[in-house]
């Protein structure tokens, strides 16, 4: 069993880094969220790996078995998965609203529009009138 020694962990690290890279390098807001979930899932995998004992069974007590894997990482990761889905759901809701407000979910396009907003408010500070911006919020209420 020891052949793979740390192999498992190294793969986990590679996975984490792919996820992490997707989060910070990509500009599409949905893709970032996919990256986050890959990143997190890999961390979960890391926790579960450390709870494993070779030749053991799942920690559901039964007279037939003696050796059980460690239940504590499982409990932690159950919680973490829930936190993960909660974050994803909220993030997606935000993405939907951003799409409605900006007409895009690409980071740089949003930034361009924000810069324009900022220019306008800068002009406004020096006495120019701000263009009317239709916000989706108005439609909602």
């Amino acid at each position, binding site marked *: 069993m020891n052949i793979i020694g740390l192999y498992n962990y190294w793969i986990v690290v590679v996975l984490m880094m792919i996820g992490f890279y*997707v989060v910070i390098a990509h500009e*599409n807001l*949905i893709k970032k969220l996919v990256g986050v979930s890959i990143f997190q899932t890999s961390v979960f995998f890391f926790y579960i790996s450390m709870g494993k004992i070779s030749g*053991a069974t799942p920690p559901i007590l039964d007279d037939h078995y003696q050796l059980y894997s460690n239940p504590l990482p499982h*409990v932690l990761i159950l919680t973490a*998965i829930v936190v993960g*889905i909660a974050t994803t759901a909220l993030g997606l809701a935000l993405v939907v609203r951003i799409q409605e407000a900006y007409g895009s979910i690409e980071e740089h396009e949003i930034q361009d529009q924000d810069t324009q907003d900022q220019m306008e408010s800068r002009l406004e500070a020096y006495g120019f009138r701000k263009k009317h911006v239709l916000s989706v919020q108005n439609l909602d209420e």
Partner: protein
Amino acid sequence: METLIDIVLLSFLVLTALAVAKMHDLFAVVMLSGIYSLLTASLFLDLDAVDVAFTEASVGAGISTLLMLASLKLVGRYETRTRYRPMLALGVVLATGALLIYGTLDMPHFGSADAPVHQHVAPRYLNDSMGEVGVPNVVTSVLASYRGYDTLGETLVVFTAGIGVISLLRVSRRTKQQEMQKVPADMQQQIILRVVVKWLLPLILIFALYVQFHGDYGPGGGFQAGVIFAAGIILYTMLFGLSNASRVFPPKLLELLAALGVLLYGGVGIVCMLLGGNFLDYNSLRHDPVHGQHLGILLVELGVGLTVAAVMITIFFKFTWRTVKHKYLEK
């Protein structure tokens, strides 16, 4: 054999992750991320984490993929190929990776039974939980009793996400009333599916209840049950339309149920306090501590199930209503 499965699955995982990073069709990316979750779930199973595998499959591959697809419907399918600035990102990622790899060098090897993790804290759960809590599934006893407070927090996280999604995607009543009748379900024309689901739905819901109440003995519990229950309702919604579904579950009821779940969990804790124990000390619920633990776990799992199901259904409904609103606005 286990090792072989392990290696194969891990390689698949890496390939999937790379594909996710490479592809620009978001639909494919989302499906791949679902596959990624499913593969992870299989690996969890291989690593004896049955409860986690169950949850990852239902959440990562199920709900999460579903929500992503729902939002793709609203935001468009393709990622534009744009100027990345990957060097900085790559630098950060490589530095992080290097730190992690450095960290692994002193780690106890995978699967070794003498790792510190297995020496401290955990043995007590395995050895004494049967006597102290009386539940064969140690994961359940740790989740709901030893670390029951974490689980209360977890329920609250779900609740918080629900509040967040509601406040972001709320649609005014006017829009709803005008559009309610006219919206066809997404898959209305799939007659075969409709028939099958009509038969399947009660089974799904019953299975949810089984998972809810059988969590003490096998994998499962409030969270998984809530998700399965929600999945059943979501399936129904897809086939029979949002209007029908929200007649059964009006938004207010769902919000109330979500709140009640948390209150039930917290309430059990408070009752324990009033009966002389610490917060969430189920021993004080009954004369016999083990009976008390049983009752406590049953109730808090029910609370978790309630909140999770209600929040998941709410979130799905909100996303769907948003689609309806968009159609309305297009007209």
